[in-house]
C-alpha cells in the first residue's frame, strides 16, 4: 500500500507538460549526409533564473560537431517542460541540422570578398572622417 502511494506521488511529481515557445528553420541543403544535433536545457525553480548561458553551449556544441563545414538546415526548438503545478520547469533548446563541407574555392572567394569589403569599409570610414 505504501509503495503504491509513493508510486502515485512520484508519478504526479514527475509528470510533465511540454509546450513550444519558438521554432525557426534555416535553408535545408541538398547534401544531407552529416546530421548534427544538440540539446541543452536548464532547470528553473519558481522562476528564479539569473542567466541564459545554456543557449550559448548549444552553439559551441554545434561548432564542435562541424569544425570545417557550414551548419545549415537548422531546426531550432525552444520549449518549456513544466512539472508539478509549474513550481519547477525546464527550458530546453533543441537544434538539429546538417554539416555541409565548404568547398575550398568557395572559401577563397569568400576570403577575397571579405578583404574587398573590409578595404571598402576602411575607405568609407576615411571618407566619413574627412566629411
Amino acid at each position: 500500500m505504501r509503495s503504491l502511494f509513493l508510486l502515485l506521488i512520484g508519478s504526479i511529481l514527475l509528470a510533465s507538460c511540454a509546450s513550444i515557445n519558438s521554432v525557426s528553420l534555416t535553408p535545408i541543403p541538398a547534401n544531407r549526409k552529416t546530421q548534427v544535433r544538440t540539446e541543452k536545457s536548464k532547470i528553473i525553480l519558481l522562476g528564479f533564473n539569473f542567466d541564459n548561458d545554456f543557449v550559448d553551449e548549444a552553439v559551441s556544441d554545434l561548432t564542435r560537431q562541424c569544425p570545417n563545414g557550414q551548419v545549415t538546415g537548422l531546426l531550432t526548438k525552444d520549449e518549456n517542460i513544466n512539472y508539478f503545478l509549474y513550481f519547477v520547469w525546464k527550458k530546453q533548446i533543441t537544434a538539429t541540422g546538417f554539416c555541409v563541407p565548404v568547398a575550398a574555392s568557395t572559401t577563397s572567394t569568400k576570403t577575397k570578398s571579405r578583404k574587398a569589403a573590409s578595404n571598402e569599409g576602411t575607405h568609407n570610414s576615411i571618407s566619413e572622417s574627412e566629411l
Partner: protein
Amino acid sequence: MLRAFALRCAFIFALFSTGCTHSIHIANVSDFAPTYKEYSKGELVKAKSEQFAVMGFVTETNYVDNAYKKLMASCPNGTIQGITTQYSTSHGFLSWTNIIEMQGLCIR
C-alpha cells in the same frame, strides 16, 4: 421546461466544442541562400503537422520534427530555401490544436 434546458445545453456545447479562435505565435522566414534563384525557378513545397492537447496535457513536441521531416521528404534531392515556419494554435472547448506549417522553395 426540460426540453428547453436540453436545447440550451446543446447550444452551449455546440458553441464551445467548435474551434472558434485561432492564434498565431510565430512566423519565421529564412533567407533564400545559397542559390538566391527566382521564385518561378523552383517548386513550392509544404508540410504541416498537428498536436491535439486537452488542457495542455502533452508530454512531447515531436510534431515539430515530423513537419521538418515531411518538408525534407517533399524535396529529396534539392535545396529548400526561403522557408516560412508558422506556429499557431486553434482553440476548442478546454482543448486546443497546435499547428506547425512549413513551406519553402525547392531548387533541384
